[in-house]
């Protein structure tokens, strides 16, 4: 990300005490002109993919050309993901909080002119509530945001993540200051215990208990102890951690520094997925800046406590999200898990006591220390406290990042915040927990989204992927998709995972071709159980979950495939037929020209037909037809 802020910044000068941090923050706040507008461009991956870079360039150009008083010349700032990805590219005018959506470079001129002439917001770029049809100018009033409780994401979208001063002005490192001046390391652990925080990476292990376990291990084995951040978020369709690392890298760092202070660690590691180059870049910048201000490294804020972190880039292996595999990978080896009869807190990285937490877990720690464990425990529900960030994707209107208190009903997230399924029909199921999780059908939409309720419903929280499926999505296909993914990603060390997943996938391949029997279904269930019981690590052990969950709720759909030889959702290729509706076909010939098989024939301006025997069901005709004449049976 380009350096966005053009405000005058002090030269980085080492802060030697908590008081100096407080003074710096006050100076930063005082130097801010309350009348200066900021044009904030969202640089989340979603907005970048839809053209945010071009929008920013156009805004810069328009701003340069605009005739306005230099004193009030607005700043352009780029931030991490604002969350409302489906409406991107997003631009917000601060301090008013005017929310512009689907902005194109052509809109830049009008945005700048509206500011220059103080003419009120550009009406056509405002969000329109689909229910009432009315425009909503302010971000905070839009239901998507109004219904959320953004704590972990509180700074993302308002700070420039490449500028530590922006973070400090917004309250960054206040928790660290508090801990260093008024808390013993033991108290930090106690606050985290009190908060009830559970690991956001998937399993939901109580963080405080993990830290306490590490302290006990240190008593026995001594130091060094390591703190590690798991940023190897690999669940396809989940990008919460990526956006936290990109949008507020200092939150993750501050959490790790607090953890290191609590445990007496001097070295930390950030293991970040290779596919997240921007996250790696922003974390690297954050580390450098924190070091230069004395917030990281030797003698942090003059307290005598020293701690530093190193980034390890992942190299493309899903299994490295598993704790022991992640440690082996940091040690420079192939990331294969080891059996967990010895816990990582006792024997983790380099065989030393190690605390491994996920990105979002670390980002919660400063909140807990700043506001207290009791405060945190009051959010959410008793056994799942705090908030959780979800990436709400799939067949839902408002695709994006959502943060809600634990325990909110699933249907509320999908239908109220997410705006429901396009077309207004009820959703079919919501897949949670990625390849280790399951799915919750529409009938259970009142299920509270917390660790235990999701598990009871046969799914799991996982890291926070929430994939909405509608009637055009086939559960056999989805189960097969996850199995194929894990088969590919299996490290191959243990047989249940290496061979078991392949066999399960083969049976599902048959199902998708309409072949199979009741016996196969039973075999599948027994094989799934064997893998659950016998796999070495959690990845293999949880791999059958998507299948078992879909089987539990959608057995009929499996039976439709193997007994009825039909794919009710119209997805499984061998069980579907493409046809052209002669009443809708205008004979425009575009499908015939696009068909890679030459399987479509017909005269110009007359209805066309598909030769089923030549059709490979590539879907190109369906995509090409502008008249909705191609149908799938």
């Amino acid at each position, binding site marked *: 990300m380009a350096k966005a802020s053009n405000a005058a910044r002090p030269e980085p000068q080492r802060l030697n005490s908590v008081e100096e941090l407080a003074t710096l923050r006050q100076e930063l706040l005082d130097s801010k002109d309350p009348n200066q507008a900021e044009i904030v461009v969202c640089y989340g991956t979603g907005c970048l993919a839809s053209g945010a870079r071009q929008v920013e360039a156009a805004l810069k150009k328009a701003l340069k050309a605009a005739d306005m008083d230099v004193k009030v010349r607005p700043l352009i700032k780029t931030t991490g993901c604002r969350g409302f990805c489906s409406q991107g590219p997003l631009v917000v005018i601060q301090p008013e909080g005017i929310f512009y959506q689907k902005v194109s470079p052509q809109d830049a001129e009008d945005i700048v002119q509206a500011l220059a002439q103080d003419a009120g917001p550009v009406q056509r770029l405002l969000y329109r509530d689909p229910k009432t049809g009315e425009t909503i100018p302010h971000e905070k009033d839009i239901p998507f945001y109004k219904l959320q409780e953004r704590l972990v994401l509180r700074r993302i979208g308002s700070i420039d993540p490449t500028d530590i001063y922006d973070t400090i002005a917004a309250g960054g490192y206040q928790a660290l200051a508090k801990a260093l001046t008024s808390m013993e390391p033991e108290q930090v652990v106690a606050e985290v215990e009190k908060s009830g925080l559970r690991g956001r990476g998937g399993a939901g292990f109580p963080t405080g208990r993990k830290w306490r376990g590490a302290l006990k291990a240190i008593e026995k084995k001594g130091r060094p102890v390591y703190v590690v951040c798991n940023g190897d978020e690999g669940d396809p369709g989940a990008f919460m951690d990526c956006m936290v690392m990109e949008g507020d890298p200092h939150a993750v760092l501050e959490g790790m520094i607090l953890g290191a202070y609590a445990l007496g660690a001097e070295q930390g590691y950030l293991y970040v997925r290779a596919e997240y180059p921007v996250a790696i870049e922003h974390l690297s910048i954050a580390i450098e800046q924190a070091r230069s201000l004395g917030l990281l490294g030797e003698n942090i804020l003059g307290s005598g406590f020293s701690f530093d972190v190193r980034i390890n880039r992942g190299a493309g292996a899903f299994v490295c999200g598993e704790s022991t595999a992640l440690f082996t990978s940091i040690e*420079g080896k192939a990331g294969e898990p080891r059996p967990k009869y010895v816990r990582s807190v006792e024997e983790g990285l380099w065989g030393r006591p190690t605390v491994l937490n996920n990105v979002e877990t670390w980002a919660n720690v400063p909140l807990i220390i700043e506001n207290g464990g009791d405060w945190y425990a009051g959010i959410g529900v008793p056994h799942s406290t705090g908030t959780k960030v979800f990436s709400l994707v799939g067949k839902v209107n408002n695709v994006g990042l959502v943060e809600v208190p634990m325990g909110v009903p699933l249907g509320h997230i999908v239908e109220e915040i997410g705006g429901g399924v396009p077309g207004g029909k009820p959703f079919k199921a919501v897949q949670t927990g990625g390849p280790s999780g399951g799915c919750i059908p529409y009938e259970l939409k009142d299920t509270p989204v917390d660790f235990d309720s999701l598990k009871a419903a046969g799914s799991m929280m996982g890291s926070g992927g929430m994939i909405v499926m509608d009637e055009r999505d086939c559960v056999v296909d*989805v189960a097969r998709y996850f199995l194929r993914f894990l088969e590919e990603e299996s490290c191959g060390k243990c047989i249940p995972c290496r061979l078991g997943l392949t066999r399960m996938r083969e049976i599902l391949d048959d199902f998708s071709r309409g072949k199979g029997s009741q016996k196969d279904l039973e075999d599948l269930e027994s094989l799934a159980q064997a893998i659950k019981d016998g796999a070495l690590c959690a990845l293999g052990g949880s791999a059958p979950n998507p299948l078992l969950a879909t089987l539990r709720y959608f057995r009929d759909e499996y039976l439709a495939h193997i007994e009825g030889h039909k794919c009710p959702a119209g997805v499984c290729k061998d069980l579907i037929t493409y046809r052209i509706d002669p009443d809708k076909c205008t004979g425009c010939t575009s499908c015939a020209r696009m068909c*890679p098989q030459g399987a479509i024939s017909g005269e110009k301006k007359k209805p066309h037909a598909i030769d089923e025997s030549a059709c490979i069901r590539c879907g190109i005709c369906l995509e090409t037809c502008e008249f909705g004449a191609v149908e799938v049976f």
Partner: protein
Amino acid sequence: MSPQESKLIDIDEIIDSYPGRPEYLIFLLQDIQAAFNYISPEALALVCDHTGVPLSRAYSVATFYKSFSLEPRGEHEIKVCDGTACHLRRSELLVEHLERRLGVPAGGTTKDLRLTLDTISCPGCCASSPVVMLDEDYYPKFTTRQLDELLKDLEAD
């Protein structure tokens, strides 16, 4: 200076930028992959000498992780996201279309070393599904027709 020699200098620079310890094996392989687009047998041997890792283990690491390639990869890389959200929007059909057009399976490289076709699982822009990436650029809500145009532009390039 021949290209061979310049490569040699580069690789020495890369190797010397890390301490000679086994834990730096993956760092070195990543930098070499990024610089040369693949890891040649010679490069692997140099890395082993430097880090003290046996060749057998370096080979196991280089073949374990997906971001390493022991074969030269294409000058450009076209990647179709096959994350869950893109899968639901039938990204599979885009992969199959590219496989037919390019005559290589996913993961393969065209004979002229121009293009490598690959799938990725989720770079995190699910609102744009199905998404295609050409090198570092994103192409949101892509169709087979747009793919054809993209390939045409690439050929003309």
